[in-house]
């Protein structure tokens, strides 16, 4: 059993005093300090030794006033806090803080759905509201609105949106944020946008309010603790139509991206279109040892055998249309015509109509079965995703794909990845799946991740989000004018949070209080 980790510069006695003060705010039950409790917040999928990101404890407020009280006490006792909503940020650090010894501020108890407005299509929720909770609420109350959710839905609506996560049907969830309530690092309480007006009805209906627009400044940031969020939902559509095409060769991604880009840009396809490789399908359905026994990346011939046996493509292109049936059909026709100029392969089409079982609709139905992909390599599964942003251009994407695949092979990993097409740029995600019991494999996974960051940065591609272990390195790759963005972030950080108590190091933003910790 390891010794209790304290934050840098904080003695064990000072930490005890701080916890005693926290306990007076939240009560004994919600101040968690045992070794066992701390371990429940560690990063299961850690690249480094887990102790590099182990908290010294956790504290769980029940309401906004308790959050404010805890933040003020943290200032007084100089104890850093790491806010989480449900803390299921698996692949990016889970519930664990960037800096060891930081106390997790677990907002999971604050789990009220405060408002769902069917007429205007939004909800206002607290951080602890999970995707399961929101889904159940919409179903139970028969509200004709749909939520959007990531590939696994154990987490929270707020945490996922704040980390700028994405999912289906709506794509980038941060784009749907409309109005936040935030406890600032000095304990002050602010509402952004129209919510800054105490009698406004449009807090979650109109985004920017008056003057500087703040919502995005609190995403992927350590400028405050978000305690409420307005989020736009989509009207339950009368129908949906899904198009799916299997492409046989790795090179096919290039022309597919070029075919899709103008359709995205014109809005014919209004939701992100995905192009995913064979392993995305295979890893949730099978384990590597069924196909290949040896070390190193699976040889091409065995990959082909797996593709043929499972009846999947090298790539699978997927998109979906939601709305009136005739509109969906018309859009699908435009897409089919565009693809017919480039391939003889046909789309598989599936139409869903309101009233039919939801499973085929493309609605976000909560599920955690995606978690099993981590077990591809056997042992205790772990994975992380490397996701740089590229122009939505086929030639650039396939050139970078070749570099990425070469790195995967060089480090002995099977290539897992794909593209999510926005209107102008695409997110190129590559998943590294490893067995965390195997120290050598874990080291290779880390080396691969580092190499991928270097290659991408050299080509001018930066990541949209990353794991705790790489936050500093990715921040460095945003290097214009000798890192002017970092200087701006840190100026703001130091102004709002002079003692550096909220999430030091998150996204590579280090407060003045921890000069020695930047890697």
């Amino acid at each position, binding site marked *: 059993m390891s010794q209790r980790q304290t934050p840098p510069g904080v003695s064990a006695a000072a930490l005890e005093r701080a916890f005693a003060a926290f306990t007076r705010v939240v009560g004994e*039950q*919600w101040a*968690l300090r045992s070794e*066992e*409790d701390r*371990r*429940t*917040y560690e990063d*299961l999928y850690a690249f480094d030794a887990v102790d590099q990101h182990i908290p010294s404890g*956790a504290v*769980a407020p029940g309401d906004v006033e308790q959050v404010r009280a805890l933040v003020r006490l943290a200032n007084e006792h100089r104890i850093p806090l790491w806010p989480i909503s*449900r*803390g299921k940020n*698996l692949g990016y650090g*889970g*519930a664990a803080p960037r800096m060891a010894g930081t106390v997790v501020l*677990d907002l*999971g*108890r604050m789990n009220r759905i405060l408002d769902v407005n069917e007429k205007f299509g939004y909800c206002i929720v607290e951080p602890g509201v999970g995707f*399961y*909770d929101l*889904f*159940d*609420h919409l*179903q*139970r109350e028969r509200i004709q609105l749909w939520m959007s959710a990531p590939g696994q839905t*154990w987490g929270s609506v707020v945490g996922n949106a704040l980390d700028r996560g994405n999912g289906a049907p709506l794509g980038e969830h941060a784009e749907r944020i409309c109005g936040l309530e935030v406890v600032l690092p000095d304990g002050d309480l602010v509402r952004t946008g129209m919510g800054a007006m105490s009698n406004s009805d449009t807090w979650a209906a109109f985004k920017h309010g008056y003057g500087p627009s703040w919502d995005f400044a609190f995403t992927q940031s350590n400028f405050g603790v978000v305690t409420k969020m307005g989020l736009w939902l989509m009207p339950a559509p009368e129908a949906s139509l899904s198009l799916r095409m299997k492409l046989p060769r790795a090179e096919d991604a290039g022309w597919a991206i070029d075919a899709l880009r103008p359709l995205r840009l014109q809005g014919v396809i209004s939701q992100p279109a995905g192009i995913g490789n064979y392993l995305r399908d295979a890893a949730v359905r099978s*384990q590597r040892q069924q196909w290949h026994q040896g070390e190193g990346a699976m040889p091409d011939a065995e990959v082909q055998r797996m593709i043929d046996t499972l009846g999947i493509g090298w790539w699978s292109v997927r998109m979906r249309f939601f709305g009136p049936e005739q509109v969906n059909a018309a859009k699908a026709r435009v897409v089919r015509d565009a693809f017919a100029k480039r391939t003889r392969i046909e789309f598989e089409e599936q139409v869903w109509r309101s009233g039919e*079982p*939801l*499973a085929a609709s493309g609605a976000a*139905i*909560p*599920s*955690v*079965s995606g*978690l*099993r992909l*981590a*077990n591809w390599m056997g042992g*205790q*599964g772990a994975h992380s995703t490397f996701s740089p942003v590229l122009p939505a251009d086929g030639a650039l994407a396939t050139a970078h794909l070749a570099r990425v695949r070469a790195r995967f092979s060089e480090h002995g990993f099977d290539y897992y990845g794909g593209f999510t097409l926005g209107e102008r740029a695409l997110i190129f995600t590559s998943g590294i799946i490893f067995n965390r019991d195997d120290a050598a494999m874990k080291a290779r996974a880390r080396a691969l991740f580092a190499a991928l960051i270097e290659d991408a940065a050299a080509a001018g591609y930066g990541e949209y989000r990353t794991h705790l272990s790489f936050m500093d390195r990715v921040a460095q790759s945003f290097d214009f004018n000798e890192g002017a963005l970092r200087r701006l972030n840190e100026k703001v950080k130091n102004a709002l949070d002079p003692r550096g108590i909220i999430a030091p190091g998150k996204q590579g933003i280090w407060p003045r209080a921890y000069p020695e910790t930047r890697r």
Partner: protein
Amino acid sequence: MSQRRLIMIAAAAAATLAFSQIACAEEAAAPAAADSAALYERQCGICHDAGGFGTVMLERRVGAERSVLAQRNDLPPAYVRHVVRNGLRDMPPLTRVELPDADLEAIAQYLQRARQ
């Protein structure tokens, strides 16, 4: 199980869960049997129902017959408590915030009851 049915179960679970959380908020008396089932469904069933992540992983390790947790008869409460708080291989541990001790106790007892 059909998606519909799953949705209905989930909705029912949430309704009773909301109630049981209020009941558990202070010093909890163990929830009644129906609440325990709902609690189990929400906190564990999402992975341990047929076809779930936990079930698939247990199938790989202990075989199909023993892969659905609620049908097992060899899970002493102490073991359940230990696995939930410490995790086990691919099962992540659950914190005392998302699953307070009183709720875990109710689930451990429920899994005991399930075998009788």
